[in-house]
């Protein structure tokens, strides 16, 4: 009798283990895609912690224009400009609240010869010429239309319209070029994993058709809307419902997104210490990086930008350096 009971128990246990294994395998196949492209090759890194030209204290944003790399050197309150090989060219800004001063600049955007700098502390966007001349200031602190509560990143449309990730506002706002409010996605101040809502949005970018890609930072996903504002699709972990993880196509806090010239999207996956590359429909293509301080390793990859030749530049946050990568 005892032997039969034991056999039955073993059978049940075996069945349960098999069931769990099948479920895990099915989940893996469904939610962890394999790479479709080779990874990227590390080229070089530059920087180091400090205040001198070419050094950084919290690099948090990066953009590329006209063969130059613009870096938001956040805690130093300045923008540093380098050539594509990392040679220092110039800098502008200093910590503060006055026009031209910077209070924790975040993800940078260049459009039509102008640099857009969202400031986390000053709740505004300053627009500079690429030489560092201040052109105008958009927004101010608050949760009203056209106001910001820690703007983290933005995109600029072909007519100069702005799409701003309002981090503590839990929304993405569309503004006219002069800052007048047009509409928003998300409910002000309310976090949610529902479609069109956010859990601390960090960045926005546009594709060639004007579709709007929004990095939902702690929502661990990317949401896409057509130019009219209609939801198209989303991705990031199982069902893009905020579940984080280290697997292909998952995020653990997505802090920056940028399109490459071939039309694929790169995403800085902060706590996973890597950059992921996706097709515009969210198909996972490849990734690169890994935790560390050596060449090709990140201590939290926070921002990404892509040059016209396909080189990818990454702000390596806690290593206080910029890394350059190229396709294999």
């Amino acid at each position, binding site marked *: 009798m005892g032997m039969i009971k034991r056999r039955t128990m073993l059978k049940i246990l075996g069945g349960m283990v098999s069931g769990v294994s099948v479920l895990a395998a099915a989940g893996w196949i469904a939610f962890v895609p394999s790479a479709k492209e080779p990874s990227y090759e590390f080229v070089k890194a530059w920087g180091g912690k400090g205040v001198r030209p070419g050094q950084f204290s*919290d690099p*948090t944003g990066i953009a590329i224009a006209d063969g130059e790399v613009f870096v938001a050197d*956040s805690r130093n309150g300045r923008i540093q400009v380098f050539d594509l090989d990392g040679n220092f060219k110039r800098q502008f800004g200093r910590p503060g609240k006055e026009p031209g001063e910077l209070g*924790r600049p*975040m993800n940078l955007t260049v459009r039509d010869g102008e640099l857009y700098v969202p400031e*986390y*502390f000053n709740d505004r966007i300053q627009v500079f010429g690429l030489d560092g001349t201040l052109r105008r200031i958009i927004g101010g602190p608050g949760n009203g239309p056209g106001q910001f509560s*820690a703007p*983290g990143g933005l995109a600029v449309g072909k007519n100069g319209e702005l799409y701003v990730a309002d*981090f*503590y506002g839990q929304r993405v706002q569309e503004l006219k070029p002069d800052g007048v409010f047009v509409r928003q996605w998300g409910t002000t101040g309310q976090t949610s994993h529902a479609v069109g809502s956010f859990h*601390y949005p*960090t960045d926005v970018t546009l594709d060639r058709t004007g579709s709007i890609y929004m990095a939902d*930072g702690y929502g661990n996903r990317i949401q896409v809307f057509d130019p009219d504002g209609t939801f198209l699709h989303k991705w990031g972990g199982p069902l893009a419902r905020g579940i984080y993880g280290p697997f292909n196509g998952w995020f653990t*806090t997505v*802090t920056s997104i940028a399109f490459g010239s071939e039309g694929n999207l790169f995403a800085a996956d*902060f*706590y996973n210490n890597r950059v992921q590359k996706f097709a515009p429909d969210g198909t996972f293509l490849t990734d690169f990086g890994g935790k560390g301080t050596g060449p090709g390793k990140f201590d*939290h990859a*926070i921002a990404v930008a892509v040059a016209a030749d396909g080189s990818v530049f990454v702000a390596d*946050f*806690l290593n206080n350096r910029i890394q350059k990568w190229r396709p294999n």
Partner: protein
Amino acid sequence: MKTLGRIILAVFTTTWIATAAFAAGPSYRIEVAGLACPFCAYGIEKELNAIGGVERVETNIGDGTVIVTMKDGAALDEATAKQAVKDAGFTLNGFTQAAQ
């Protein structure tokens, strides 16, 4: 004459540094979980800087701690710090006054 000038400068500098150091109020060490991301660390800094009487806020993103130094005569209570951390989207894990 040169030596006398140097001595005066040294005395002046020492006095100035000492005055500045003693003019600062108490410091507090605040512990917060998940402070590695600047989007959160800066949020906490911003909230704490908005509290009246705060002289300086230093975040250590690596170990998840924040040191708040108050102006001379000002103090920070735990409830206020807790609310500031909560407004930044986090939970206060520890609050201690640093030795003066």
